[in-house]
């Protein structure tokens, strides 16, 4: 399964990222993500901080299950992508350019809501050494836009 063109477009639109996992003991964990993009092999990579995302990293390593929520502030459009083959690896400086670009787009989105530019800077503090990548094959997608349709399945493209 692969992302639809609209989903790929949304990755770069300035979304907020939330990344969730669950430990083998059943503890749900969550952290903010900084960037996500489609890899050439059709997998999705989401970049998080090892410092703020330590619980998620440990849970994903344990169960390999992951959920990525992306929400666009300008219209509340929101969706989740799920995977069950997630792998965690060091991302480092190779993803700095992507993180910077995604941060700029997200900052622009929040600016319209009256948040000063430095506000999102409080969330994007990870150094290159702290950038971690979670790669997974999206197996299902859910609509999370507020309303009665929240939680319903979104169709993925057959790869």
């Amino acid at each position, binding site marked *: 399964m692969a992302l639809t063109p609209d989903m790929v477009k949304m990755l770069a639109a300035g979304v907020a990222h*939330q990344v969730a996992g669950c430990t083998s003991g059943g503890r749900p964990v*969550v952290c*903010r993500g900084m960037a996500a993009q489609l890899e050439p092999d059709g997998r999705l990579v989401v970049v998080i901080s090892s410092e703020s995302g*330590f619980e998620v990293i440990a849970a994903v390593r344990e169960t390999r299950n992951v959920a990525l929520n992306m929400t666009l502030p300008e219209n509340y459009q929101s969706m989740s992508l799920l995977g069950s083959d997630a792998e965690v690896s060091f991302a480092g400086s190779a993803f700095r350019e992507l993180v910077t670009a995604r941060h700029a787009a997200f900052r622009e989105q929040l600016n319209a809501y009256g948040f000063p530019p430095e506000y999102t800077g*409080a969330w994007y503090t990870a150094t290159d050494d702290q950038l971690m990548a979670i790669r997974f094959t999206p197996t299902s997608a859910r609509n999370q836009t507020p309303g009665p349709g929240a939680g319903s399945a979104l169709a993925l493209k057959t790869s």
Partner: protein
Amino acid sequence: MSAVFEDGLSLFAVRRMMEGVVPPSLATASADRVPNVSYLSLAEYVDPLHVALSYQFFNRSRENVLATKRASLTLDDPYTGAGVVLQLEYERTDTEGPVFERLRAKLMGVASHVGMDKVFHLRGADIYRVLEMRRVPGRKELPATQPRVDLPTNSRLLSERMANCGDLADLLDTLLCGLGELLRIDFAMLWLFDASQAALTLLASRGYEVDGAGAEISVGEGIVGTAVREGVPIRVGHMMNMATYARAALESVDALGPASPAKAAIALPWLKEPRSQLAVPLRARGRVLGALLVESKHDQFFGYDDEDALMMLCGQFAVAMSLMQPAEPEAVAAPPKSAQPAQSGSALRLRRFTRDNSIFLDDQYLIRGVAGAILWKLVGEFLRSGRREFSNRELRLAPELRLPDVQDNLEVRLLLLQRRLAEQNAAIQLEKAGRGRMRLVMSRPIDLHCENS
């Protein structure tokens, strides 16, 4: 369990993160460990160990929570960028009671902003016990904004000024002026709840281009109408989509049938583009008597501390208002019939519509409800007997006014009537004639017309 969590955190200390400026996110997992994460409309502080989360739709999060009882919640400070992560255990769902009502009122406020008030419906308040709470590490927090005033000290000063007021007009002016002078709140409106009309009537405003006294909205309309209906404060701290809001309000009016004369005739003193609003109910003796609405042109202007301060001041105002029954009138030797000022010009046509006691002077809407009935009685009595002075007490006892009970304060209605007449520079004015007495002053002859409708 202790109410102090890791890093010395307490739920009370992070409650401003639950304002919804930055939406909270909720992570859950199914029994087979498949995670899910989505944004919530609202989180609400319940007590040092519990939070309430809005339950609007039966979705994946709820399915997971009912299966596992576990969830993780993230909250972000809208000012500093700091964040906390909570581990929660689901306990129950409330479908009534104070927590549910607070959450429902806030949801209505939020929903009306995004044009979703017909869709957003609170099914319940999910109550969770907080098992753990910790700071999100690695955040480069911004300095907390300096408070614009010393709220506790200045609220106390304002409270003292209000305590020295001897009558309602003085109390009202002291409150509205004090909000600007001491709390730096430049835009304020004080609304009265008229249970007989199921409406709110604007008693006074400050800071707007139009005064709007006598203007009406329906109970449940906008955040001030919702605050009155639910009896809880509602605060909206981020950019307001006024166009959507106005549309929602219009739909609400349409659903209630034709607009009342007050709605059609008196312009509301709204800000064109408010960025923050806070509506605080006036509560006394277990009832909601009205609400104070304050607004700002700045985002995130009102915080929890403002809400706390205004709740106390409005409580004091409401109690004082309900206690300020008309004083016993001074003894008068004989009912004065003389001292009639010269009346000239064409007759003023005073029309009353019996359905809601709405009063028109010539073709200009003046007021309705109890205040309208009062004016009708006073002028009618004058035309019958020539008497221009009246005691508040005789009005309070007049059966035709049908004052609902002692808490439907006559003094308030008289003040509203007096201000509406003065604002219109009408040929009829109402002035004080000593303690507990008032006097009609008319500069034109009057023709009364009663229309049954």
